[in-house]
């Protein structure tokens, strides 16, 4: 399909054309009472010429919003997430970066008890692995259910990258299960990621 560039900024409700001339694509819709195409997103308006063998030869007008440019987690990608809730058998996390890029919209991930580490997975205590507010590096296992992606930290280089102690200072990792607060010297348990220098 050829694309002809017409990069005009539109807002929701802007008229994009008549339904007789154009077909609505993503981010546009037809109001049937007056056969006009309106935009439904804020973004750049783009017209795509139709493939030559289709019966309907109207060009397709679409609007690409800013979220369309953001990265989306795929199974197998390494993500950075912040833990929001720790429960008995799962921990919820907000995905912040996919690879090196930060995301444009909110994605939620879940780390299940059996995905925290590779050994002795039924004896995992979620509270000794994560606390709310920790930054973790995880890998996306699957798209999960409607609510959240399934994440896993079951490798040496995955796990808590940065955490705050109860005294408020950023803790220093001392082993794969422990981090120490520099202000008070208290040791707290986490599933720590091995940082390869």
């Amino acid at each position, binding site marked *: 399909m050829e694309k002809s560039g017409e990069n005009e900024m539109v807002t929701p409700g802007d008229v994009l054309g008549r339904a007789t001339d154009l077909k609505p694509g993503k981010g546009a819709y037809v109001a049937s009472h007056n056969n006009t195409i309106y935009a439904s997103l804020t973004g750049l308006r783009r017209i795509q010429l139709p493939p030559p063998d289709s019966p309907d030869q109207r060009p397709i007008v679409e609007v690409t919003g800013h979220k369309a440019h953001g990265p989306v987690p795929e199974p197998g990608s390494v993500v950075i997430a912040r833990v929001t809730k720790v429960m008995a058998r799962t921990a919820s996390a907000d995905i912040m970066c996919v690879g090196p890029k930060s995301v444009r919209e909110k994605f939620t991930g879940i780390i299940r008890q059996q995905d925290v580490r590779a050994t002795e997975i039924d004896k995992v205590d979620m509270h000794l692995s994560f606390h709310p507010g920790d930054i973790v590096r995880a890998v996306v296992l699957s798209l999960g259910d409607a609510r959240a992606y399934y994440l896993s930290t079951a490798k040496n280089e995955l796990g808590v990258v940065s955490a705050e102690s109860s*005294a408020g200072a950023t803790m220093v990792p001392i082993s794969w299960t422990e981090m120490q607060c520099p*202000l*008070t010297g208290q040791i707290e348990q986490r599933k720590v990621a091995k940082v390869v220098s």
Partner: protein
Amino acid sequence: MENKQSSSPASFIDSTVVPGDVVLDLSSMTNQTIKLGGGLRQDCDAISAMKAGTLRFLKPNKYWIESSQKRYVPCVEDTVLGIVVDSKADNFLIDIKGPTLAFLPVLAFEGGTRRNIPKFELGTLLYLRVVKANFGMNPELSCTDASGKAAEFGPLKDGYMFETSTGLSRKLLGSPTCPVLEALGKKLSFEIAVGLNGRVWVNAASPDTIVVAANAIMNSESLSTAQQIIMVEHLLKNIQ
């Protein structure tokens, strides 16, 4: 208003402190390991109070702040009185007067299996033990003691439950026996269950006894030993 002396520890032990008071200065105590209990916070070398209450010290090295409040903060191994609020597939949701509801796993009973899950109505009062209490997570409870036996945990039938402060609950459970309970026990026969979360349950053969016992306990919080005994005699005179 208190006189602020130079922060030598002896001046604050067993006296009232408020949040922000620096109660210990570690730079003046070298080579000691100190254990900090609830209500104290370490800021590099200064130990300051986070709660209003009395600073207590137990030899050789334990410091903590004792205070009495209506709000309960769940702690592991506490025995509490909880009320069933909801039941889900794996847990009962129990209200224990804490910041969140607590979970009671459906199998946490003596001889509990998937086939004989107890059915509690909403509002049932239970005597429970706190198994896990982490910050940010819902506490987990159990109806057995650490070795798996039932040991008095479970639903409490009949009787009357009332709410008190956490300080009074601790006094009622302290040893030697609290003066008000001793004085009541000499004349009346009743049974009592005290939860560290500020709930007390009393049961007796007749409603009069229950009401007298409950009133006596509720009145006894700020009274000294002698005053408590006098108050109990006064109440008992009125019913006999």
